[in-house]
């Protein structure tokens, strides 16, 4: 079974990636990077990562979130985060990245924030 599973759905002009599994060095990080690159190549720049199913992330995975955030920003898009687990929220607090990422607990609120 893959380390990280990503299912894509569209809500207006926002692409929501429902993610499940682990974002760690190697396979998980590469899967996320590949998905983001593909969306940017397709011109999809408004991206919401639903992390409800991500139970574990390491420093490499956090680095990949940052890399995705800056890559999308450079293209004039926006990456936002939805449904962080408590552990992931703690890790983003420790790294002070909660001050960088736009984080939501409600999908509706997250989608409205792109308007």
């Amino acid at each position, binding site marked *: 079974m893959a380390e990280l599973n990503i299912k894509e759905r569209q809500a207006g002009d926002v692409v929501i990636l429902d993610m499940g599994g682990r974002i760690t060095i190697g396979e998980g990080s590469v899967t996320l990077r590949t998905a983001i690159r593909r969306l940017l190549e397709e011109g999809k720049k408004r991206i919401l990562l639903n992390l409800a199913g991500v139970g574990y992330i*390491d420093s490499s995975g956090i680095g990949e979130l940052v890399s995705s955030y800056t890559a999308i920003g450079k293209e004039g898009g926006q990456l936002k985060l939805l449904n962080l687990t408590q552990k992931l929220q703690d890790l983003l607090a*420790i790294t002070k990245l909660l001050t960088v990422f736009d984080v939501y607990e409600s999908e509706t609120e997250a989608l409205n924030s792109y308007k």
Partner: protein
Amino acid sequence: MTEETTELVLPSRIESIAQAADEAAKVVRRAGLSSDAAFGVDMAVREAVTNAVLHGNRQDETKTVEVEFRSSSRQLVIIVRDQGAGFDLDEIADPTDAQNLLKTSGRGILFMRTFMDEVEWSQHPEGGTVVRMTKKNN
């Protein structure tokens, strides 16, 4: 509980990180640590072995990473040694400084220090960097 020691000698590849974490999970279970402590140990072991494989040994598979777990009723000590050239801890940038927040790497040491009670680095007399991490069994 008497002290229990487990040693691993791992090749310098990414897969070794999960292998070390799997062994850490077994040691943690036997030691009866809390789930919070287990999460912290898992994270610290992964980050320490990642540093050893990537930055210490630079994924040179002729070099190994040694991981030792010393578990007692008082504490769990984890020692990770690589065969790299070493690094100057003072030159490691603080990843929480505003100017470093968007860097894609450099957070591993922060996690090791956050989740373990003590973390110390030294140079092994025969070469390589040694990191010694302690989790107290409260």
